C-alpha cells in the first residue's frame, strides 16, 4: 500500500520552558493506511494524547506547539495548513472521539442539534434531510429509539449511549481518519466490549483509518492491526500487533507486557477457617430528591446495597468485583462505617459494630483500615507525610515519639525513603502516594485491610508494583483483605475468593479459580466474556 492516509515524520512537539522535559513528543514517525487500525500505547505522560491533538491542530497554543516535522494527510502538510482549512478538515476528514463523552458533549444542547451542527458547517443539506441523516446515523451506531435520542440531552443517556452518540457524530461525514483517544477508559467492561466492536464494525463499513490511543494492552490485542509503543514522547517500538505483543523487542515493551495481570487466576493458597469479619444482610438505600420543606413523599430510592451477606476468613483476600454503580464502594464504606447502613449486622470479633456510635467505634477503627482509590485525593495536601502516617496511632492513644518511629519504619516497609517523612504529598508521584496511603492504613496495625480500587488510577507498571507490595505486606502482617475492583485481571491475580456484585446484590461467590473456570451466574459469564484481550491470553498460555 503506497497511498498512505497519514504520514507523520520527525514530529517534535515542544513544551513550555520549565516543564519536566523540553519535548512532549520527539522524533515521532508513524503512518496509517486506509482501513487500518493503529494503536498508540503508552503510560500517562508518554505524549500519546498530544500526538492526537497535534493531528487535529488542537494543541494548547502558544505554550505547546509543533517545533519540527511534518504531518502529511493525503499529501497535504497539516502543520502548514491555514486555520480555515484546518476547520474544514476537522470533523469532515479527520474526526475524533474523546475519553469522557460527558464532557465532550455540550450539556445544554440535544444530541440532534449537535449532530446537525456538523452537517450545517460542512455540507449543504435541507433541514429535513439533515434530521433524517442524524436519525440514520444514530441507527447505524445501534442506539435504541433514535427518534427519541435526537431530542435527548447528554445527561439523559448512559455512558455507553453517549459514547455511541459521539461515534455517530465523528462518523457523520465519513471521515478518512478516526482518532479515538482512550474512548473506552471511562466505560464499564461490558460496555467497552460493545463500543470496541462498534468501532471496528464502523471501520469495516467506512474503510477509514483508525488511530486508537490507549493504555490497555487487552484492548490493543483485540482491536489493533499495528501497534506503536510510546515512552517519554518517543516511539520505542512499532510493528504488527502479533509481533509487538508476542515477540516484543524493546525492553520497555517487554516490561509493560509483563506487568499486565494475567487472566489465569493465581494458585489458591491454603487458608484457615477462622472468620474475622462477617456481614449479615446489609441494606443501604439512598433517598431520591428531597421534597420541598420535607412535605410529601420523598420520590425515587436507589437501593445501593441489597441484602449483602459475606464473610472474610483470616489471611484471605476477598475480591468484590462489579461494574460502576454495582454498590461495591458503598458496601465497603458501610462495612468500615464511613456510612451508616440501614439495617443488617457487621460482626467483627464477635461484636456487631453496625450500631456503635462514634466514640464506641473508635477502638474498633484500628482493626479495620482502608486504602483509597485516588492517590491524589486521599492525602491532605497541607499535611506532611510523616504527620499523615503518625496521626492514626496518636488518635488511638500512642505518644508522639512512638508514633513517629513507627511511621518511619512503615515508610521503609512500603518502599519509600525515610526522608519522605518531612515532605508534602504533592512532591510524590501517584504510585508513591499510594504507598503513603498504604502506610497510613498499616500504622494502626489493622487485622483487616479494605482496599477500594487501590490500583485503578495507576499506570500498569506502577499497578504491578503496588499489587506486589500489597501481597508482601499481607504475608508479613498476616492481613485479611477485602479487595474491591472492576478489573477482572487484577482480581484474578490478587483474590482468593470472589464476590460478584450487580445492582447492589451479590450474584455469585466462590473461589477465584472456580468463578473464572465455571461461572454460575449469567452476569458473571457476561463479565468474563467482556474482558478485552482474551485471545491474546490464550496465545500466551499456549
Amino acid at each position, binding site marked *: 500500500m503506497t497511498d498512505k492516509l497519514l504520514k507523520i515524520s520527525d514530529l517534535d512537539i515542544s513544551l513550555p520552558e520549565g516543564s519536566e522535559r523540553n519535548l512532549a513528543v520527539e522524533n515521532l514517525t508513524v503512518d496509517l493506511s486506509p482501513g487500518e487500525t493503529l494503536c498508540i500505547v503508552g503510560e500517562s505522560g508518554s505524549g500519546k494524547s498530544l500526538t492526537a491533538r497535534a493531528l487535529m491542530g488542537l494543541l494548547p497554543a502558544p505554550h505547546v506547539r509543533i517545533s519540527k516535522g511534518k504531518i502529511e494527510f493525503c499529501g497535504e502538510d497539516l502543520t502548514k495548513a491555514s486555520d480555515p482549512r484546518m476547520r474544514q478538515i476537522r470533523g469532515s476528514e479527520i474526526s475524533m472521539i474523546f475519553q469522557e463523552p460527558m464532557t465532550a458533549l455540550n450539556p445544554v444542547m440535544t444530541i440532534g442539534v449537535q449532530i446537525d451542527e456538523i452537517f450545517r458547517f460542512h455540507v449543504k443539506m435541507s433541514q429535513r434531510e439533515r434530521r433524517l441523516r442524524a436519525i440514520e446515523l444514530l441507527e447505524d451506531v445501534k442506539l435504541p429509539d433514535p427518534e427519541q435520542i435526537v431530542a435527548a440531552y447528554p445527561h439523559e443517556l448512559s455512558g455507553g449511549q453517549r459514547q455511541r452518540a459521539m461515534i455517530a457524530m465523528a462518523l457523520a461525514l465519513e471521515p478518512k481518519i478516526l482518532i479515538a483517544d482512550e474512548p473506552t477508559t471511562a466505560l464499564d467492561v461490558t460496555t467497552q466490549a460493545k463500543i470496541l466492536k462498534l468501532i471496528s464494525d464502523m471501520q469495516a463499513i467506512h474503510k477509514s483509518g483508525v488511530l486508537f490511543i490507549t493504555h490497555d494492552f487487552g484492548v490493543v490485542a483485540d482491536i489493533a492491526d499495528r501497534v506503536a509503543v510510546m515512552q517519554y514522547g518517543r516511539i520505542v517500538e512499532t510493528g504488527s500487533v502479533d509481533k509487538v505483543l508476542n515477540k516484543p523487542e524493546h525492553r520497555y515493551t517487554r516490561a509493560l507486557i509483563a506487568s499486565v495481570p494475567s487472566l489465569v487466576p493465581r494458585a489458591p493458597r491454603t487458608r484457615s477457617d477462622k472468620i474475622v469479619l462477617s456481614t449479615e444482610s446489609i441494606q443501604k438505600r439512598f433517598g431520591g430528591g428531597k421534597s420541598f420543606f420535607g412535605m410529601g413523599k420523598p420520590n425515587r430510592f436507589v437501593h445501593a446495597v441489597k441484602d449483602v451477606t459475606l464473610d472474610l476468613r483470616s489471611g484471605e483476600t476477598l475480591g468484590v468485583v462489579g461494574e460502576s454503580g454495582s454498590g461495591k464502594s458503598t458496601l465497603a464504606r458501610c462495612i468500615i462505617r464511613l456510612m451508616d447502613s440501614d439495617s443488617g449486622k457487621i460482626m467483627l470479633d464477635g461484636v456487631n459494630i453496625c450500631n456503635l456510635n462514634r466514640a464506641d467505634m473508635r477502638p474498633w477503627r484500628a482493626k479495620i483500615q482502608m486504602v483509597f482509590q485516588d492517590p491524589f485525593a486521599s492525602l491532605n495536601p*497541607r*499535611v506532611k507525610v510523616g504527620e499523615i502516617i503518625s496521626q492514626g496511632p496518636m488518635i488511638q492513644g500512642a505518644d508522639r515519639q512512638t508514633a513517629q518511629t513507627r511511621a518511619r519504619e512503615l515508610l521503609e516497609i512500603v518502599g519509600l525513603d525515610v526522608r519522605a517523612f518531612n515532605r508534602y504529598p504533592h512532591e510524590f508521584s501517584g504510585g508513591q502516594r499510594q504507598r503513603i496511603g498504604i502506610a497510613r492504613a498499616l500504622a494502626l496495625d489493622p487485622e483487616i485491610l479494605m482496599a477500594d480500587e487501590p490500583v485503578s488510577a495507576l499506570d500498569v507498571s506502577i499497578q504491578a508494583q503496588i499489587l506486589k507490595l500489597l501481597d508482601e505486606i499481607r504475608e508479613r502482617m498476616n492481613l485479611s483483605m477485602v479487595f474491591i475492583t472492576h478489573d477482572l485481571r487484577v482480581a484474578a491475580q490478587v483474590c482468593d475468593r470472589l464476590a460478584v456484585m450487580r445492582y447492589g446484590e451479590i450474584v455469585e461467590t466462590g473461589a477465584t479459580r472456580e468463578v473464572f473456570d465455571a461461572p454460575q451466574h449469567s452476569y458473571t459469564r457476561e463479565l468474563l466474556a467482556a474482558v478485552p484481550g482474551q485471545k491474546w491470553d490464550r496465545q500466551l498460555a499456549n
Partner: protein
Amino acid sequence: MTEFWNRFSCNRQAVLGLIILGCVIFLASIANLIYPNDPFLYSRFPLSGPGENGFLLGSDSIGRDVAAGIAHGAKTSLLIGLIATIAAVFIGVIFGALAGYYGGLVDDILMRVTEVFQTIPSFIFAILLVAIMKPSIESVVIAITVVSWPAVARLVRGEFLALKNREFVQACHTLGMGDLRIMLAEILPNCLSPIIVIGSLMVATAILVESGLAFLGLGDPNVMSWGFIISDGRSMLRVAWWICTFPGIAILITVLAINLVGEGLNDALNPRLRERN
C-alpha cells in the same frame, strides 16, 4: 513562601497595589508625628486653598487642616476595615464550616439565617444598624461586620461541602479522628486561599461602607475619617473643591490598591494556576 512571593511579584499591578497600600499604612502610622495636633482643631484661616497659609491640602469651612484630617482618617479607615473584616471572616467561617460539614438540618437552619441577612441591601442595612445603635466606632464596626459575613459563610460552606467528601477526609474518619479536629486541622487549611482573597477584598468594601456612613453623618463624631471630611465639604464643593477632592482621592487610591493586592493574592494562591507550573 518564597515560591508564593515569586508568583505574586509576577503580577506588576499587584506589586503596585502593595506599594500604595504600604504608603497608606505608613501615613496612618506616622499621623501622630507629622500632625501631632487634634485634627478637629480649627484655625483662623477657613477655606484656604492648597498651599496657602501653611495648609498643604487646604483647610475647610472652619479652618481645619485637610491634610491632617486625611492622615488621621487613614488610621480610622484602615482600622475599621481590618477589624470589621476579621470579625466577619471569623463569624462567616464558623457558620460556613458548620453548615458545610454537617449538612442536612444544620445546613438548612444556618443557611436560611444567612439568607435573611443577604436579602437586605447591605448599605441600607448598615445605615439602619448604626442608626439604631449610637453612631460610634464600635457601632460602625458591628454594622459592617453584620452586613459582610454572609458572603464568607457562603464561600466557606461551598469549600467544606466540596472537601468533606474527599478521600483524605474520609481517611481521617477511618482513623477515628474527631469532627472538630477534622474541620480545623484538615479541611480549613485547604480553604485558606479563597478566604484570604475574599478577606482582602472585603477590607476595601468595608472602607467604602465606613466612608459612606461617615458621609451620611453616621460616623463617630469624635473620630476623624475620610467620609466625614467629604461630608463636611460637600456644601462648598464649588467654592472649595479641595475639601472633597483630596479625601475622595485617598479613598479611591486605597480601595484600588487593596483590590489590586486581592487580585494578586487570588492569582498567586489559585490552586489551578499552581498545578500548571
